[in-house]
């Protein structure tokens, strides 16, 4: 028996409660359902929630804390000689016991470990049975509570709606709490990094070389954590991407909103938005295997020295990727300009082009600007294309023909493969992540601010 069995049992109980209480509510008024305050099905819904929630609460409690409780019981039962060792060793011990408990004895021969593993399994099994009984008991209590309430006057519908309301609020709260948790862990780990590397070195340093010695006597680089080359590379690629995506996206939006007929628009808009659905890894190998060699060969013809992992190739492909962002958001901004204004301009004898340039674009400018900003923040945070198509070597340059690396590429490089968790090198990934997060956050806030001001103009 596992936790999911308990889940199924509770769900079954809830379904039964729904059917029974629904029937009961009809019976209570001897079939005259119009005398019920709430429809029979709302009595049913209410009862099934009353069964579901207490049962699930017990199960959730067990799922979160069950193993820890059992572990502590095991530890308490170990011989004193072992139990007295330090925390890390105990951790290891518990892990070994659980491994034996879950996967069989294997090569383990230590008597007391085998005994402990057996105890673990026994206790855990008891725990599950206890949880099943407890949750069924809680569900039964919920059922009795709900069943007792079935009278004509009982306001089952408002009660049900209220509980539903609470559950919805809980979901949104959870989403926010998780986000805050992620940011908090990012900040926490970054603080540990900044204890080892001063903030000004990170922010203003122009050398990035995160190789640090693993052992004290090892010959290795000192380690330099200046993030400037990484951000320079990131912004260079994002800039190239915007040079591609900005004009194409905006012109596409203008064409689709102002010139294209409904038939063209109905085809072209979804197709353009499909571009946004292409997995970035596909763009990545498109950039690495098609575009980058193409640029290099073109460079040879023109006598230019183009790196095989040039910023240009990565930037251009990233630009193609973010075209739909620009076009779709600019499209919305242009569509939001009231048609009456456009008519007013046309009625004054302005041509469609004059109307677009002199009236529609200025009116939609905040929306268009915010679409650009959102696209930039997307370009800055984009990882897969640059991992595949941009270089690995930090390079402080403005020349798009050279290879540069980006923040995201370095984070991937830092955290790929084996790494020591407490080293400055690993922690630097969190600092980079935080810096990246702050950068895109600033862009997003700025963009949303623009959109908000823009909305006010037409209300």
């Amino acid at each position: 028996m596992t936790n999911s069995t308990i889940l199924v049992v509770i769900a079954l109980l809830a379904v039964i409660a729904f059917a029974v209480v629904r029937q009961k509510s009809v019976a209570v008024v001897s079939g005259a359902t119009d005398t019920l305050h709430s429809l029979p099905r709302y009595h049913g819904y209410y009862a099934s929630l009353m069964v579901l929630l207490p049962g699930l609460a017990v199960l959730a409690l067990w799922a979160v804390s069950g193993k820890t409780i059992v572990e502590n019981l095991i530890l308490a039962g170990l011989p004193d000689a072992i139990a007295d060792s330090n925390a890390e060793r105990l951790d290891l011990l518990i892990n070994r016991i659980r491994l034996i408990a879950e996967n069989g004895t294997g090569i383990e021969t230590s008597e007391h470990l085998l005994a402990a593993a057996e105890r673990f399994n026994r206790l855990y099994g008891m725990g599950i049975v206890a949880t099943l009984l407890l949750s069924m008991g809680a569900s039964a209590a919920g059922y009795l509570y709900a069943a007792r309430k079935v009278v004509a006057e009982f306001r089952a519908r408002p009660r049900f709606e209220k509980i539903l309301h609470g559950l919805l609020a809980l979901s949104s709260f959870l989403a926010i709490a998780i986000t805050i948790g992620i940011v908090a862990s990012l900040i926490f780990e970054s603080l540990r990094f900044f204890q080892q590397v001063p903030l000004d070195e990170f922010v203003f340093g122009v050398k990035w070389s995160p190789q640090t010695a693993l052992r004290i006597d090892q010959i290795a680089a000192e380690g330099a954590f200046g993030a400037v080359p990484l951000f320079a590379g990131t912004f260079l690629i994002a800039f190239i991407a915007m040079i591609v995506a900005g004009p194409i996206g905006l012109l596409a939006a203008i064409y689709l909103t102002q010139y294209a007929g409904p038939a063209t628009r109905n085809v072209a808009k979804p197709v353009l938005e499909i571009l946004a659905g292409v997995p970035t890894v596909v763009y990545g190998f498109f950039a690495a295997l098609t575009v980058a060699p193409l640029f290099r060969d073109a460079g040879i013809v023109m006598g230019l020295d183009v790196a095989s992992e040039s910023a240009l190739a990565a930037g251009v492909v990233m630009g193609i990727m973010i075209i739909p962002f620009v076009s779709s958001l600019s499209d919305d901004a242009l569509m939001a300009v009231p048609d009456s204004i456009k008519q007013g301009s046309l009625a004054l004898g302005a041509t469609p082009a004059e109307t677009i340039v002199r009236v529609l674009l200025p009116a939609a400018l905040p929306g268009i600007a915010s679409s650009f900003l959102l696209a930039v923040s997307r370009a800055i945070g984009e990882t897969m294309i640059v991992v595949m198509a941009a270089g690995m070597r930090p390079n402080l340059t403005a020349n798009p023909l050279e290879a540069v690396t980006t923040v995201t590429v370095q984070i991937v490089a830092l955290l790929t493969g084996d790494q020591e968790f407490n080293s400055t090198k690993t922690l630097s990934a969190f600092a980079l992540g935080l810096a990246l997060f702050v950068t895109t956050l600033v862009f997003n806030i700025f963009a949303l601010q623009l959109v908000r001001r823009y909305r006010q103009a037409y209300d």
Partner: protein
Amino acid sequence: MLNAAIESENEALSPPKMTIRDVHVHYGDIHAVKGVTLDLRPDQVTALIGPSGCGKSTLLRCMNRMNDTIADCRVEGQVFLDGQDIYDSQIDVVQLRARVGMVFQKPNPFPKSIYDNVAYGPRIHGLATDRDALDEIVEASLEKAGLWQEVKDRLDQVGTALSGGQQQRLCIARAIAVNPEVILMDEPCSSLDPIATAKVEALIDELSARYAIVIVTHSMQQAARVSQKTVFFHLGEMIEYGDTTQMFTAPREDRTRDYITGRIG
């Protein structure tokens, strides 16, 4: 009988500014305007009245070809401006709209400054050679629209920040600025309060000396107050055309009387 009345009138007066001959308008399968024939005099206000959906706004939008912007709209018949067919393929619609201005139901100033709103038309048509000339046009237009005194100290403020009535007079100033010959007004007061309405009506009266004005309105009183000629439409057909006073005191047609007295609509 209607045509005969128009013909007899033609002999007595100066040539009409616009002549509409047997105009039909279709929106897809809907026959919105059914054979309208009408003359517009250069120094008169003509009111188009009738219940909603009777085709009066559609007819108005035929006179500056704003119907062109509607995808499945089809216009048959002829509309002449100074004897020239405006639906002729040789006609430049941009030129036409500079000569036939339009004021819309809802004030629709551009989200630009008051000055730029008025200067918009002169700029695109190149009516002013330098800044001074443009300033003059803007001032004169706002003056004619009766708005100059209210806005002369804040020309750089955004036009959408004005009150509804001021916005509508700004739109009228904007239309006047390109020096049109005809001004079409599509229920210009329907979103205004009575005081703003009175101001716009007084303005229409003043402007009628210089421009041929066609106004679509749902208000009988407004038609009676501002117009010299009234046309009554019903279900896409032109039912009656005549002097406003005669129309409101002794309508020839029963349907006109029913509408004016509120029995159909």
